[in-house]
């Protein structure tokens, strides 16, 4: 996605938040090597393409009860068992706002650097659908609870994707709204079955400005948002369970020219498909335009099996939602330390400052802390947080081992994660426990085994046969030779057996010493530390063979 960035930088600078432009410039130059957004090689003088991606994200609020009613929020339950009279839109029922949902919205707004509107309003958005019993959804169209924030994420750049640079996407607004129920279409009998369990569950709609330019950026930004929501506890943000839904608005244009017609891509229920769908759509639009076609302002769905976007059923022209103020709800007023009315019932007022003080540690702060505390590189901290359960695993190993943090980091991120990825396993499915790895690292740290022996032990542990590292070491006789004398004898006899190599060493051939070390190692069945062997050999060589071992 380099190309979009070559032009993207100037576009972003116009309204970009400060502090991140320098990173973008760095990112730009290192990205210049990557492939461009073109369908074919551009002819001389021809314009290149830039893509613009805007995301609309719906996050289900993690709460016990629904946004405007006291029925339960729960994932799998018997149909229509979690439905109150209000959720079923029976006449005479009224919405009653859930305090927890408001707090969740404020927390999320604060975590995303938004301005929290002390007064926000509720509206009705009208449309007819089987799973919307009232015929309207209560939302916040005119004046949402939070506006003008930013979401910062880290993207991998560099030759081997090893460096991390930060980018920012602006948050236009965050609003509270109701979720709809679920419809199941039975085409055979031409009927639609409706389950209202989900109807009325609180949602946070987050609208991001179109500051993203490719699938990877969108995926990374959404992943970071997931981590933030999970750290805050405001949403479990599990895409597979529908707790986080993302719609993407995609358009392409030639830099310097006006933005192109955009299409909306829906039905994206994993981060991986989000990236794929956006990139496919960008390429589709470029190809279409380069072939002289035009882009329709339509809604498309991502077809997983075909790996492409397809038009959804055409909506009747432009939807007219006939927004009107929700007549049953007064404005939502929030307070801070200075404006808090005296003697107010604490259950009836929301203090933004108090919520800010109680915010839990955000992922960016956690990463910073890891870098400081364990002297790891920023990219390591990103990997630790990105992989579900990995941070906890890492911290458990650290707790139980004597080995230094850098060693733990290296083993967890390289060896452990490498095995997981190879077999496509999640951390919680790992056959190796944190305790086992900690024990292994202790053995390594105390120099009981060599690092190559440790790798062997790890491979054995992965087989999950119930043996501890110590048991494996003794069974496979992987202990390092501790007998210094025996080792010295071995060195001496190897040198005696290979006079030519010894001559080469004395002649000053730098590779010859390694050959000697290798020979000694073989003789010890790899049970000696090469560094120790080298020291002994060098000592013996310097004696010019005139001081045989004792």
């Amino acid at each position, binding site marked *: 996605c380099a190309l979009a960035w070559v032009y993207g930088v100037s576009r972003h600078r116009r309204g970009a938040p400060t502090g991140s432009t320098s990173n973008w410039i760095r990112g730009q130059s290192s990205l210049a090597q990557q492939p461009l957004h073109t369908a074919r090689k551009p002819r001389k003088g021809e314009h290149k393409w830039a893509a613009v991606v805007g995301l609309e994200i719906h996050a289900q609020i993690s*709460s*016990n*009860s629904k946004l405007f*009613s*006291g*029925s*339960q929020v729960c994932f799998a339950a*018997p*149909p*229509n*068992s*979690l*439905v*109150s*009279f*209000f959720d*079923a839109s*029976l006449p005479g029922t009224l919405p*009653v*706002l*859930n*305090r*927890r*949902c*408001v707090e969740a919205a404020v927390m999320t707004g604060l975590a995303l650097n938004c301005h929290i509107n002390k007064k926000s*309003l509720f509206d009705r958005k*009208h449309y*007819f*659908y*089987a799973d919307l019993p009232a015929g309207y959804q209560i939302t916040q169209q*005119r004046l949402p609870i939070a506006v003008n924030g930013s979401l910062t994420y880290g993207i991998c750049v560099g030759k081997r994707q090893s460096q991390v640079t930060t980018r920012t996407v602006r948050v236009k607004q965050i609003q509270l709204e109701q979720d709809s129920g679920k*419809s*199941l*279409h039975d085409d055979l009998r*031409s*009927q*639609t*079955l*409706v*389950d*209202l369990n989900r109807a009325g569950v609180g949602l946070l709609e987050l609208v991001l400005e179109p500051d993203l330019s490719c699938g990877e950026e969108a995926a990374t930004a959404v992943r970071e948002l997931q981590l933030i929501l999970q750290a805050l506890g405001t949403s479990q943000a599990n895409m597979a369970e529908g707790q986080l839904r993302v719609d993407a608005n995609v358009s392409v244009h030639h830099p310097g020219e006006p933005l192109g017609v955009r299409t909306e891509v829906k039905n994206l229920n994993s981060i991986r498909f989000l990236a794929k769908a956006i990139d496919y759509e960008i390429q589709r639009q470029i190809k279409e335009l380069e072939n002289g076609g035009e882009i329709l302002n339509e809604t498309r769905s991502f077809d997983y099996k075909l790996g492409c976007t397809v038009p959804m*059923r*055409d*909506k*009747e022209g432009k939807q*007219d939602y*006939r*927004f009107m*103020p929700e*007549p*049953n*709800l*007064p*404005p*939502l*007023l929030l307070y801070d330390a200075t404006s808090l009315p005296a003697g107010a019932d604490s*259950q*009836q007022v*929301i203090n933004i400052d108090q919520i800010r003080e109680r915010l839990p540690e955000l992922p960016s702060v956690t990463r910073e802390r890891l870098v400081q505390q364990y002297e790891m590189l920023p990219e390591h901290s990103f990997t630790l947080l990105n992989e579900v359960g990995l941070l906890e695993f890492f911290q458990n190993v650290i707790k139980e081992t004597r080995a230094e943090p850098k060693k733990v980091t290296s083993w967890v991120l390289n060896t452990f994660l490498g095995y997981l990825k190879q077999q496509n396993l999640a951390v919680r499915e790992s056959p190796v426990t944190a305790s086992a790895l900690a024990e292994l690292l202790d053995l390594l740290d105390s120099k009981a085994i060599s690092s190559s022996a440790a790798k062997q032990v790890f491979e054995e542990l992965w087989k999950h046969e119930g043996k501890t590292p110590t048991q494996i070491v003794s069974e496979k006789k992987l202990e390092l030779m501790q007998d210094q004398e025996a080792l010295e004898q071995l060195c001496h006899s190897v040198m005696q057996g290979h006079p030519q190599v010894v001559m080469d060493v004395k002649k000053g051939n730098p590779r010859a010493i390694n050959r000697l070390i290798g020979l000694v190692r073989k003789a010890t069945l790899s049970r000696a530390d090469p560094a120790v062997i080298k020291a002994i050999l060098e000592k013996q060589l310097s004696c010019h063979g005139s001081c045989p071992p004792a």
Partner: protein
Amino acid sequence: MWARAVWLGLRAPLGGRRGFTSKADPQGSGRVTAEVIEHLERLALVDFGSREAVARLEKAIAFADRLHAVHTDGVEPMESVLEDRCLYLRSDNVVEGNCAEELLQNSHRVVEEYFVAPPGMCCPEWFNR
């Protein structure tokens, strides 16, 4: 669905602040076009079955337009008569639900604890019948 469009009396966008008769319509005839009637019928699922119904609509709009007689320049609009009321905040406890049987009794058709929606309720063809 029937309506007779005499001439284009409406220039203002739907839902615009000024309502259906606008300063842009010099004739001020207050006629509602067939296009608008169709649009309203789709959105609100009402049936303007006769010329009389459309005429009644036009009269209702004209009646409401008398609001324009009031000068509101510089006055903050009132969005809700509840604007001075306190919005009550409920604690996040589960106190309702678990009444599927009762709710399903209201439905004309039911399949195994699911409401059955009228056929085609979710597709555009229904709106174009």
